[in-house]
């Protein structure tokens, strides 16, 4: 079933909406969640939560790309779930490593207090991504959006994990420069 038909089911409040969305994008969402959470049980619960969140968000939303809409819901819910899990000392997936890497880009002082500032920051990162060649752009998004492991990226690109790590390091340096030039205090 096409995206538009599934979104229509959500708008009609049809009980088929969630099963159809799960059939089409369940495994995609599970991959996003699993990279962040690591645990299969948490992943399954997180995907169910994301589909429920989609049910609550559509309407009023009418996403043009249902896959990325569900992916973003899943990613946010997985990060929230991970924060809670940390209190109970379980889970983690790739996030601890990724946070360590991102420490190179930031100062560590909280500065993004409101949603507007965060949107500006996202827009600046989007424009930086636009300036990259496709291969590097996809590599960065796979690592920091999909939270793929270096090994997965190596398998995906046919390069060695060390090479991937070096490329990502250079990309982080470049992002830091880009954000500093645009007035963000990293």
């Amino acid at each position: 079933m096409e995206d538009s038909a599934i979104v229509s089911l959500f708008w009609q409040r049809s009980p088929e909406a969630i099963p159809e969305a799960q059939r089409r994008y369940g495994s995609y969402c599970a991959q996003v969640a699993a990279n962040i959470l690591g645990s299969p049980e948490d992943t399954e619960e997180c995907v169910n939560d994301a589909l429920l969140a989609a049910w609550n968000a559509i309407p009023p939303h009418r996403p043009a790309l249902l896959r990325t809409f569900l992916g973003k819901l899943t990613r946010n819910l997985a990060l929230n779930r991970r924060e809670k899990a940390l209190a109970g000392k379980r889970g983690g997936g790739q996030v601890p490593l990724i946070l360590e890497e991102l420490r190179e880009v930031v100062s560590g002082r909280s500065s993004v207090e409101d949603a507007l500032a965060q949107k500006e920051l996202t827009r600046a990162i989007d424009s930086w991504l636009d300036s990259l060649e496709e291969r590097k752009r996809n590599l960065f998004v796979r690592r920091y959006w999909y939270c793929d492991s270096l090994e997965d990226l190596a398998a995906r690109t046919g390069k060695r994990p060390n090479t991937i790590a070096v490329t990502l390091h250079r990309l982080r340096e470049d992002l830091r420069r880009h954000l500093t030039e645009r007035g963000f205090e990293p």
Partner: protein
Amino acid sequence: MTNYELLLALGELGDRHVEAASAPQRRRSPSKGLAWAGLAAAACLLALLWLHRPSIPPDLWVEAPPSETPEGPPPAAPDSPPPVLPSGPELSLSGLKINAGTSGPAISGAPPYFDPALYTQETWDDNQIMNYLGRALTLPWYPEDTELRQSQYIVRKKTGELVRDQLFLTCTNGENRTVLTLTVSRLGILGTGCVVLPDTAEPQTTDICGTEVTLSHRTAAGQDFYLARFALDGIPCQLQTQGLPLADTVRVLAGLILGCDSVIITE
């Protein structure tokens, strides 16, 4: 900012970036890539031999008998310089016969409904596709900065009869816009296509690398739409391009027919 704030901000990246990164990587694994490179090179060599067959002396096509080393000084080198082979088969746009078409009547793009009680939808893997078509479903050449994706619509009656066998390759650009679609169907179910020819005119065909191709064109909103219909090994195929120049459209087409990514297109 903190690294966690940055991680959250990254979560709101533009859909186009997230979507583009979700596509399968263009690069294949080294062993598979080498195998494909070998196949492509062999196909190119065969294509070159075929294209240059009139200029190759007939005795080069047969195995020469072993000869004894002649006595005396070696023969002098010929005066003419060694021939320079082109880096790929050449194809000229000047001889193409392009039929002028229109967008035709608006037709619903929704696929027909198949009752799940009577039909099942199947998903074929690469091996099943290879067995069905007798060749891999791939495009040796497609435009840079686009992502190639494969999809399919396979429906079978529960009695076993195949009623839909559409296999698709699409290329989307950075704006997630489809720039080309290849449809392959042994049953000949190719859809209406982006260019419709008037019923009154007999469409002209062009021989492209030994394959009869019906090539049609229309423009809309300042963009070129090309539609090519042809058969590969007897299997009906349709290539549609949107916003691609003619040279690129023909390069995709010739690459597919020859199984070669280095076709040179000349005016």
